[in-house]
């Protein structure tokens, strides 16, 4: 068994993606193969280190994007016009003005969508 195969098997075991037979193979390797045990420990460390990246999308963002998709399906012309204006302003406004304009525009869009859905 190559070291790369050991990594793949260890990761699949830690992510609970193995069949009963494959799990038995892992248990056997843990007992008999010191190198596999090291690989398993390393994979567990990496999984722990990566865990904070597994975040959920903020609820406000989820809803906003979903509302905008619904609006895009409902009225594609309005969305295209909005995108054209968006790119023109982004290209022409100074960076500092853009930083103020963008959150303001999002609030206006959210308000319009709320009004539309009422």
């Amino acid at each position, binding site marked *: 068994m190559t*070291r*790369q195969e050991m*990594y*793949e098997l260890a*990761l699949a075991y830690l*992510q609970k*993606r193995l069949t009963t037979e494959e799990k038995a193979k892992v248990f056997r390797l843990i007992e008999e193969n010191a190198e596999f045990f090291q690989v398993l420990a*390393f994979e567990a*460390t*990496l*999984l722990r*280190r*990566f865990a*904070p*990246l*597994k*975040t*959920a*999308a903020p609820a406000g*963002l*989820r809803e*906003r*994007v*979903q509302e*905008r*998709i*619904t609006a*895009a*399906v*409902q009225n594609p012309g309005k969305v295209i016009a909005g995108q054209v204006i968006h790119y023109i302003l982004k290209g022409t406004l100074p960076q500092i003005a853009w930083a103020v304009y*963008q959150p303001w525009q999002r609030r206006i869009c959210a308000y319009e969508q709320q009004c539309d859905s009422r």
Partner: protein
Amino acid sequence: MNRNPKIRDYISERVEGMSFEEIYSKYVDAVYRFLKFKLGDEHLVEDVLQETFLAVYENLQKMKEVSSHKAWILTIAHHKFVDHLRKKRLVEVELSEGMEADPAPDCLFIHQLLGQLDETARTILYGLYVEQLTCSELAEILGIPVGTVKSKAHAARSILQNKLREESV
């Protein structure tokens, strides 16, 4: 009752037993995380997330033909990310700076570790350890051979192993 046929389809169309809304709810977190990891900036993430799911909606029928829904949706997200980079003409250096600009404190260490790797290797490790994707799924998302994914993952692990060893000394 909604009279607009597009909206009726939007609400009622079901692919693989799921409505678009159910698909959105199921995969929005994975796509958000992926784009947050790649782009960093929350506003950009929101825009590219919207573009991704609009493309998913427009290609909903193709979902029947794919083996992994998650990999298919993340492939679209990756294409949208690349399109975004082309539009903005961002260079990799700027991307890395964006990624590390404001990571949450508990993500700081992993961002520093991943900073040692190239963009593809970072995405491969992210896919393996955060999204639990297989090497074949990652190959599909990145548009590279499975063998390249495996060799890059192996090389990246070696670099991280050395870094972690240095850290513990």
